[in-house]
């Protein structure tokens, strides 16, 4: 038996340190400059940034639609827009906000933040990540170009059959909707698979599951939820497309199909989707509370269990969207109980955050203000949610403006407020500059008060009997005042969003330059430069607690030994995060974009003929073959950290 000295090991090449190391790493990880570089990039930071910007763009577009609708509803019997246009507007608004803004923006934040938070240099499957963005962009363009071409869907964002079926929605409007859903499904599933793989296998050594930052936990949970819930809507929209295109009868009650099948399938996805949007907000809030209260959130294990239980419960309450359909009444009791149960983990989380503020030393900067706004708004939305879980109350409140108020309280209060706080909080990490604190506070109060002014009166509109999705309403039913207030609030809220955008744009140019850790946060994302270098970390950090930067030492322990002349990642074990193996990370390539273009062509053409699926498979397969073309044997390894 011979003993190998370190010198004999094949990977023991030149060791780089200091500036030489940074330079070499940057050469290895940096994408080519210019337009070409942007088209081929697989860097999670590039993709995360463009995902965020695109999703925020769709937020603005969806918001503009809501302003048009609110203007129409400001007065009774208004003739501003035609009923057909109004149907398109509420469909576009809901579809854009749910499929093109809310879910993608949360995934986008995860794509940018998760690798930094867990101390790795890239996402798993980075080319799939690039592909996911292009597919998402194509889906969004499909919907909005169709809108400009007067082909916008008009059957509501949940497109109930038979209204969306071939008989009552002739033309291509609903096909555009269903195919847009296909695009966002593919994009969301791709991101979710990447996130699960990244989180489970690429955490820094020592970051056991029990030390994972809470946002990483919610990213893991929501990604798993996407993986389990999206197939239901895939099935639903495929049935719809085939009913419309090839004459199947899945939803036609007169040919032994069933109109309610759609609602079951859609809401089996649709309800988890609400939590897929809300849970990342929980993650944002936890990080902001920790940093600005100068102590970790109380009861970490309880917080994690609360998130997991919300994720599980989300799959057991879809029927509360269907209380008025006349399903057996005894069965409803189960869904009432299940829906109410969600209030327990949510209430526990609220307690933990406020107790952290109580126990900690809160500094009321803009992000923490958004947290306070979130708590106020989300608690109201949660309590109206408890009301809607009750069958006798829901039978009255369902499909009225009360419900519109409820889900905007939950989604804007529960997800958008935390998101705006999170964007303010991580803006220095994303861009390298701080957002203006003064303007930020003005923005917060405008958004917060505008929101309350706009949506609180909707509760009353609903109780006074105003159904949702009506393009106008008669005079004399007592709905005039509340609707006028809602319209005013909508414009104040829009002003706030405009202020936020202005603040972001101005700060991008003139904001104070941010150092690595401007807020004094505890997580690994603050251990690298702002914005992070192309390789994220010069050395992979080693983690010994849940708050690695707050452990009272001057230096973060790191590990070395990854090669720097080629893209390489450290994989660790799933639970304990023990170093496992080194894994090469794919290089930038144009093929994800080409594959996305081929897929887009196939999806769009398949709205017109089913044969497009057959013909379109050829270029898609060709692009995928090029994408996965074997790289050849790895080069020898002369250079390591």
């Amino acid at each position, binding site marked *: 038996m011979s003993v190998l000295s370190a010198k004999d090991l094949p990977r023991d090449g030149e060791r780089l340190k200091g500036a030489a190391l940074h330079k070499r790493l940057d050469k290895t990880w940096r994408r080519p400059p210019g337009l070409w570089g942007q088209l081929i990039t697989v860097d999670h930071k590039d993709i995360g940034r463009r995902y965020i910007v695109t999703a925020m763009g769709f937020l603005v577009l969806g918001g503009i639609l809501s302003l048009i609708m609110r203007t129409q509803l400001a007065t009774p019997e208004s003739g501003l827009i035609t*009923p057909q246009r109004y149907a398109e507007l509420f469909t576009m608004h809901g579809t854009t906000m749910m499929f093109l803004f809310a879910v993608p923006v949360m995934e986008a934040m995860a794509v940018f933040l998760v690798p930094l938070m867990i101390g790795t240099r890239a996402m798993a499957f980075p080319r799939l990540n690039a592909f996911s963005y292009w597919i998402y962009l194509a889906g969004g363009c499909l919907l909005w170009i169709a809108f400009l071409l007067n082909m916008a869907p*008009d059957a509501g964002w949940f497109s*109930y059959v038979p*209204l969306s079926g071939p008989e*009552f929605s002739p033309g291509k409007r609903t096909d555009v909707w269903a195919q847009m859903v296909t695009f966002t499904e593919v994009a969301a599933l791709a991101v979710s698979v990447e996130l699960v793989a990244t989180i489970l296998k690429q955490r820094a050594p020592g970051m056991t599951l029990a030390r994972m930052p809470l946002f990483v936990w919610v990213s893991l949970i929501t990604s798993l939820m996407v993986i389990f819930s999206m197939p239901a809507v895939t099935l639903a929209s495929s049935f719809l497309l085939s009913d419309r295109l090839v004459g199947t009868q899945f939803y036609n*009650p*007169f040919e032994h199909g*069933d*109109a309610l099948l759609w609602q079951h399938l859609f809401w089996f996805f649709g309800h988890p989707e609400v939590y897929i949007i809300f849970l990342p907000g929980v993650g944002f809030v936890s990080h902001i509370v920790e940093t600005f209260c*100068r*102590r970790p959130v*109380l*009861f970490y294990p309880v917080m994690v269990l609360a998130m997991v239980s919300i994720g599980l419960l989300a799959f057991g309450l879809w029927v509360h969207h269907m209380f*008025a*359909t*006349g399903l057996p*009444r005894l069965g409803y*009791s189960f869904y*009432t*109980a299940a829906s*109410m*149960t969600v*209030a*327990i983990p949510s209430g526990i989380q609220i*307690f933990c955050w*406020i*107790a952290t503020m*109580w*126990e900690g030393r809160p500094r*009321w900067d803009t992000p923490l203000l958004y947290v306070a706004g979130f*708590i*106020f708004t989300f*608690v109201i939305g949660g*309590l109206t949610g*408890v*009301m809607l879980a*009750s*069958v*006798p*109350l829901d*039978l*009255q409140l*369902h*499909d009225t403006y009360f419900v519109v108020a409820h889900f905007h309280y939950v989604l804007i209060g529960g997800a958008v407020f935390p998101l705006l706080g999170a964007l303010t909080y991580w803006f220095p990490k994303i861009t390298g500059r701080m957002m203006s604190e003064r303007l930020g506070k003005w923005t917060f109060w405008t958004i917060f008060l505008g929101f309350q002014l706009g949506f609180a009166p909707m509760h*009353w509109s609903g*109780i*006074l*009997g105003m159904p949702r*999705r*009506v393009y*106008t309403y008669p005079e004399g*039913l*007592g*709905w005039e005042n509340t609707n006028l207030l809602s319209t005013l609030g909508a414009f104040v809220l829009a002003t706030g969003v405009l202020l936020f955008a202005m603040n972001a744009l101005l700060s991008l140019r003139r904001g104070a330059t941010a150092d690595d850790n401007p807020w004094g946060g505890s997580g690994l994302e603050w251990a690298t430069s702002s914005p992070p270098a192309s390789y994220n970390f010069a050395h992979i950090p080693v983690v010994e*607690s*849940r*708050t690695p930067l*707050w*452990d*009272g030492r001057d230096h973060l322990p790191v590990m070395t030994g990854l090669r720097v002349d080629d893209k390489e990642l450290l994989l660790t074990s799933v639970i304990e995060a023990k170093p496992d193996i080194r894994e090469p990370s794919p290089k930038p390539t144009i093929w994800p974009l080409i594959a996305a273009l081929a897929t887009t062509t196939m999806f769009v053409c398949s709205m017109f003929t089913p044969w497009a699926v057959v013909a379109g498979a050829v270029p898609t397969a060709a692009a995928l073959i090029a994408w996965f073309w074997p790289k050849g044997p790895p080069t020898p390894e002369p250079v390591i950290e």
Partner: protein
Amino acid sequence: MRRCLTALLALAALGGCDTVQSMTGGDGRDGALFNQLFTIFMIVALLALAAVLAFLAAAYYRRRDAREGAPPEGDGEAERGEQPYRPLLIGWAALIALGLAGLTLASYFTDRGMARPPPPDRPVLSVEIVANQWWWDVRYHFFDHSKNIRTANELHLPAGVPAMVTLRSNDVIHSFWVPNLAGKQDLIPGRVTDIVLVPNKTGRFRGQCAEVCGVQHAHMALDVIVDTPMDFARWMAAQAVPAPPPATPLAKAGFDYVTNRECASCHNIVGTPASGQVGPDLTHVAARKSIGAGTFPMTRGHLYAWVADPQGAKPGNNMPYIGLEADELHAVVAYLETLK
């Protein structure tokens, strides 16, 4: 309870609004039960909200003076700091669970109350409502079939008598909703659903389709008139009478047009050759409160507007623009006005 809810909704009442289409009315059995349950939920919700906000405000004021200073607490010391909060957290969770259990039980028993069938010895009214894009076809069924009547977009009910309403849809999913009387029930093609309405006082209410059903979803309303049993019987007797023959020459011209031309292919007028089945029954159209499923009140002017150009009045509805000459229009409206 009722008064408490009214107080909570005082802001809404400030508008001096009419409550013909409101959940606060409580003019039917289910509507009254809703008011009770909603008040219970509202009280619990306001208490919970107050508790959370008080806690948040306390946390805000507690450490105001200690903003700067010591470095952040790391993981280890922080965990020791959370021990005193453990009983509080458990108590908080228990309180939420207890509150939810109470609300769930209240909800369950209210639901049982709503699902209770009317007592077998009381008379019940049997009504069938068929939803169409965008109007309601209303049929009353009696043991003696010759008494059956059919109307549209108007539901007359006797106060205190349970009405067993059978619901069907001819096209897409609609939802039947008269908030003053009861909650919603969807009408789903291929299925038969039902709802029991027990109005407990007389009045005129408004119902509206609550599930988006196409372009004129906003104009799919229903007038609900709850009368005393005697007035209801009188109305029923009037409805059972066939349409009277036209009395004036103008009405006669209108009668000829309606029964011989386009109108008759969709509309039915009992006692005349007009027997179309796809549109609303017009036998007593002039006695109704509104035109076009609640689009306009029933006045001569609106009747003219509707007949002259139904697409201008309610764009997208299934009644085509015909292009009547002026004299034809006068005649048709004059005849329709005789259909009391």
